């Protein structure tokens, strides 16, 4: 390949001789048998298929592990399905009055997610519109790396930021916030989800064909008209799927809520309260002593299963929305 490129150095005599030697050598070497080559091709293919099946195996393993361990959980005398799905009290660590009402944890997760999305969705979408439709090249050159860095910061750093910076600020603004509260965690999760929303929405906006934009400008539309009335509706499926993926991400976010949201599961709408999310409970369990295989240990799997089903549903709906409801223009 390289010898055919136009700017390659003119071959000297020595180069030519070496090349000739190499060709002679190749011609002199015995031809490899076709059977060996075919066997190698087939072997490689089988190897690749096995690697490909590994990812399917992972999904099967997740489903199998979570469901069998959850059956273990429900086979215990202390647990009933009605209690799990009907109660709003989650107190697995109390000795005699254990209660496994998953809604207390789901409510905590929802509260954090709502706060996070109230920050991430508008900020992310508007930033994406700006990046895609308005921003001059120089501003893009600053904004894109900033978002990439924000996306690359480990979540434990955001958790630390929430605990040591956001919470004191909230406390200074309003005295009612506790040391651990849902708002602080929610804001940090929102910052974490912002790059996800922004880059996925921007991809969707960029995928809208140029012709649509030019038609909108040609009809006398301003940039605002073109972007809000034409391009955003055209890219709506991609934007919604970005939103759903961000919500799934916020559901599964662990270290921020473990550090900043506290560990008191309760059903509350007050963002100043201490709450516990599904992921926060798992961290609490893992940080403690996991050696006793009792019902509390298996409750971790039940929570994980609930979380897995919720995020998987959101991700799948997101993928379906992006594929099925895409407005195809070409």
């Amino acid at each position, binding site marked *: 390949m390289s010898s055919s490129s136009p700017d390659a150095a003119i071959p000297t005599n020595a180069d030519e001789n070496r090349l000739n030697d190499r060709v002679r050598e190749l011609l002199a070497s015995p031809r490899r048998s076709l059977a060996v080559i075919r066997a*190698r*091709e087939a072997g*490689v*293919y089988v190897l*690749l*298929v096995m*690697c*490909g099946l*590994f*990812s399917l195996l*992972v999904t099967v393993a*997740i489903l199998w*592990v*979570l469901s069998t361990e959850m059956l273990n959980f429900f086979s215990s005398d202390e647990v009933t399905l009605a209690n799990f799905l009907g109660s709003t009290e989650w107190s697995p660590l109390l000795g005699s009055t254990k209660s496994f009402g998953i809604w207390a944890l789901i409510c905590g997760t929802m509260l954090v997610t709502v706060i996070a999305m109230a920050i991430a969705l508008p900020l992310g979408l*508007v*930033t994406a*519109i*700006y*990046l895609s439709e*308005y921003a001059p090249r120089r501003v893009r050159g*600053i*904004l894109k790396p900033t*978002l990439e*860095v924000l996306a*690359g*910061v*480990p*979540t*434990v*750093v955001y*958790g*630390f*930021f929430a*605990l040591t*910076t956001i919470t004191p600020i909230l406390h200074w603004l309003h005295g009612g916030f506790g040391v651990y509260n849902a708002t602080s965690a929610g804001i940090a999760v929102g*910052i974490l989800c*912002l*790059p996800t929303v922004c880059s996925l929405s921007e991809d969707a906006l960029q995928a809208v064909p140029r012709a649509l934009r030019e038609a909108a400008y040609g009809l006398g539309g*301003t*940039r*605002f*008209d073109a972007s809000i009335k034409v391009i955003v509706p055209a890219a709506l499926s991609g934007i919604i799927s970005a939103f759903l993926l961000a919500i*799934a991400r916020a559901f*599964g976010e*662990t*270290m921020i809520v*473990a*550090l900043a949201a506290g560990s008191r599961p309760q059903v509350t709408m007050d963002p100043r309260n201490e709450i516990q999310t599904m*992921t926060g409970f*798992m*961290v609490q369990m*893992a*940080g403690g002593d*996991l050696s006793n295989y009792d019902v509390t240990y298996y409750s971790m799997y039940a929570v*994980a299963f609930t979380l*897995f089903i919720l*995020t*998987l549903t959101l*991700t799948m709906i997101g*993928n379906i929305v992006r594929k099925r409801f895409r407005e195809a223009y070409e």
Partner: protein
Amino acid sequence: MSTAKPPKSEPKTKSTIGPSPATEAQLRGSESRMRFDATFRYVCVFTASVSVLILVFLLASILVQGVPSLSWTLLSGNPEPNPLEAGLRPALFGTIWVCALCALLTLPVGIATAILLEEFQPRSRFASWMYSAIQLNISNLAGVPSVVYGILGLTAFVGMFGLFSQADKGGGFAYEIGVEHYDQFFSEGSRAILIPVPDASKPATVPHEGMVAYDFDKNRVEVNIIGYDDPYPEDEDVLAYTLFNDSESGRLSEKSWYYFRLPFGRGVLAGALTLMLVTLPVIIISTQESLRAVPSSLRAGALGLGATPWQVIWNVTLPSAVPGIMTGSILAMSRAIGETAPILIIAGILFIMNSPRHLMDDFTVMPLQIFNWASRPQDEFHGIAAGGIIILLLILLSFNAIAVLIRHKMQKPLS
């Protein structure tokens, strides 16, 4: 403008269609649209600058808290209970072990899957069904919270589905190599005496005359067993290897560097395998993208020269996709370095004073150590947590810089 007639009562929606003259209302409308556009632009600039401000604020707050606690001790010390002497060394080596192992495991599988999906067209209906299943599965796996992978790893790697559970009850592992167990006695002369034990699940050794015993430097010694009725020896040399016949022992294990066991337990290997599950979808997706970017003319040219499909991939496609694959892999690894939740589930919060010495050793990683410090109430620990975060961010930043460098230097236009 003033000559324009007053607007008729026509619907607003179709006002721009047709050559009808612009009415005053329409012009006023366009003026307000212009104003609206300008306002929206300001909103956009403001919103976009928010994300920059957040990043600046985040970094500033970490630096303000962390810079005072940065010291050589923080990098090279052990996680002592005193924050002034505490350091990250075991966590740093834990991160290196786990992430290197994770890269070794993930890269071949991930790149192979991407090659399968991108370079080999399905030849039967079943194959194409399987391809789409794998593809859908990967995009779904990418959305699974990492803490769920931690839970999976806890059952699949740490406990191995309980397949070896009968041995677990004795506190040992079903299958071990590279380990020697000893029962350690302390003699009347306060010397350690080691009695080799063939099987970790055996009950504690009862001292008896003539048993095989070693001193602490692995020299064979003769043990002198006495009962309470026997005369107590006075000589120091005899006392050094004298045991009462009911002395109690403690179990010791000496593990060599190749120590291996089933189930894996809470060791480095289980952590690396769990991180593998987390990073696998990321690596597959990024490799697929860089393979897709290789122009098909290159493949067609190689095929036309008589190369087999695998020869095309190995000699043509992969070499031209290497910069993209490396960039994606480095970014995936930097994600693995920062991943805390699955490691927390696998390793738990332990007090670890040593860097890992074998694949099954207990370990901790940098983000986990930072989490441990950050979750304590004392401000001093928050200070060293911030210092640890600075070190972690510097490592991640250098990874990202390498990725960017590769992207810029090695990527040549291929078509």
